[in-house]
């Protein structure tokens, strides 16, 4: 997993709440057995019509967001299915950071495990960011060490990531390797059963 410390990038605003993982990546793309290559299917049914033609009216298809790496969305982002294909698709498409007022629990965990920083920001803060990003080419700098978001126009907001998740993201840990350092305890537990 790639460590993430500080990131500056273009913001893509998606002003909807309850975006479920069926929207992030529809089921017909879950059949592959690889971990890579899911970016092309991100928000597929919103980006493409029934015949596979790009929908010009869906904002992510606007070339101005081509290099976006920070996604800002409404509350309860990533609800529904546990499919890790959702963060895989977001990451493969180029998103490194998500900002929303709240996330579904499983989706949030899946992000951490893949080195995606999912930031919880107040609803008001998110509204502000969405408005700016909808009306201009808008960049943000996210500093995970200091837990602060800034733009060049004086916007600044702090956020909190649970200590353990923060460490994992900053160091890009292989969690299984960490756990296996406690193998003696796992064995003890099993023997006591």
């Amino acid at each position, binding site marked *: 997993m790639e460590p993430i410390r500080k990131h500056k990038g273009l913001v893509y605003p998606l002003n*909807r*709440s*309850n975006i*479920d993982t*069926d*929207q992030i990546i*529809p*089921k*017909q793309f*879950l*059949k*592959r*057995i*690889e*971990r890579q290559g899911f970016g092309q299917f991100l928000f597929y*049914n919103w980006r493409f019509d*029934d015949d596979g033609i790009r929908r010009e009216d869906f904002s992510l298809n606007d070339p101005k967001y081509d290099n976006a790496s920070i996604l800002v969305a*409404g*509350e*309860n982002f990533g*609800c*529904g*299915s*546990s*499919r*890790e294909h959702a*963060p895989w698709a977001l990451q493969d498409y180029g998103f490194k950071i998500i900002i929303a007022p*709240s996330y*579904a*629990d*499983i989706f949030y*965990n*899946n992000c951490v*495990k*893949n080195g995606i920083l999912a930031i919880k920001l107040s609803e008001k803060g998110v509204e502000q960011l969405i408005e700016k990003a909808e009306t201009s080419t808008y960049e943000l700098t996210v500093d995970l060490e200091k837990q602060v978001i800034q733009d060049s126009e004086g916007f600044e907001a702090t956020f909190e990531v*649970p*200590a*353990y998740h923060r460490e994992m993201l900053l160091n890009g840990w*292989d*969690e*299984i390797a960490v*756990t*296996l350092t*406690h*193998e003696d*305890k*796992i064995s003890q*537990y*099993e023997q006591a059963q």
Partner: protein
Amino acid sequence: MSQPKTIIEKIWEQHVVHVEPNKPDLLYIDLHLVHEVTSPQAFEGLRMQGRKVRRPDRTFATMDHNVPTLDRYFIKDPVSKKQMETLKENCEEFGIPLADIDHPDQGIVHVIGPELGLTQPGKTIVCGDSHTSTHGAFGALAFGIGTSEVEHVLATQTLWQTKPKTLNVKVNGQLGTGVTAKDLILAIIAKFGVRFGTGYVVEYTGDAIRSLSMEERMTVCNMSIEAGARAGLISPDETTFNYLKGRRHVPKGKDFDEAVEKWQALATDEGAEYDTTVEIDANEVEPQVTWGTNPGMCIPINATVPNPDKASTKNEKDEISRALEYMGLTADQPISSVEIDHVFIGSCTNSRLSDLRKAASIVEGKKVKDTVQAIVVPGSQSIKLAAEEEGLDVIFKEAGFQWREAGCSMCLAMNDDIVPYGERCASTSNRNFEGRQGNGARTHLVSPEMAAAAAIEGRFVDVRKFATTLSS
């Protein structure tokens, strides 16, 4: 006396392997269920690191999501086929028991776990599937995980978990005739919203819950995730023990009695405190139909579809408008006026024998409306067999339903069972998200009884009135 505890705290404490300050707890996992869609990358991860599966004996796999329900040996899509073959190869390589496509135990992972007695009170159960909450019906702490966590459990039989907050959903009173467990959970989500369970483990308590059968409890716990809760459970009682007795993986004889004693002690203590409690009166719950694109967008059968102009916030207004547009409905339209094209009776929410019996009792001697295509997909091959022994298949077929083989099927339409663009389906599954049953498909979630009645009438009807006409 020690401090009264909830079942959630008791199970948690029994499974903590390791604690450190500022870190989640390392929790032992008793049972890991595996299916073909969320596991291939996890096994690949193990291979890349040269790791083994720590406890193949605590792991159990089946195939369900991709399985064809017409001819199960003919998998048209080569990518689906490859995914199923990959599971088989992985299970062979790592020594994991598998209920393969031609195995009599095959079925939806959340249906066969309880059926085989793998699911038991007090266990920690995980699966790379959000509806793992189903197993909570037995008083197990069961939750869905992503593929990285699947890999973690395969390698270590543990997970790092932050202790969840506890939420008591107390259901007072009793459900009326014709009102089902499905209506109850839909009404709960409609009342409290699709986010109210986020960050919590839910315990369902109250008289109405105690009166539910095991199968009905599974329906309720299954949809906990649709309220945002990773896990939802019910303290075990006689209903639980009676269901478990004699099942394949459940202890027998004296061991069973000892197990029951342990299980009884798990139930939430009198006076235990929850972080939050909400209450609902079961007597007031009516048969439900979802009108929108998440399970909280749900109304009683005799109600009208919401009007965005009456929304209290702009966000809510936008959400309602978008859902109405996607669903092809107009504001203030009675939900009973909505005509349907498809009926799907199946999924891990409502595909058990009792669900099929209830649906069959509605359609017996009647005919599916000629504009409707209706299918029944049993949750497992053994349910299919049991239903056939009772003649339920004949009742369904004579009414004009198709009788299929077990699998997830039209719940997520990963196989060929797809609702075409713009068409409308009354479905006993758990998600009415955009495109869930097919790109552009319009899903209305209902109980098996309501789905059966809708198949006959071609539109939604109040099953309580339907049953009266039936008997008079």
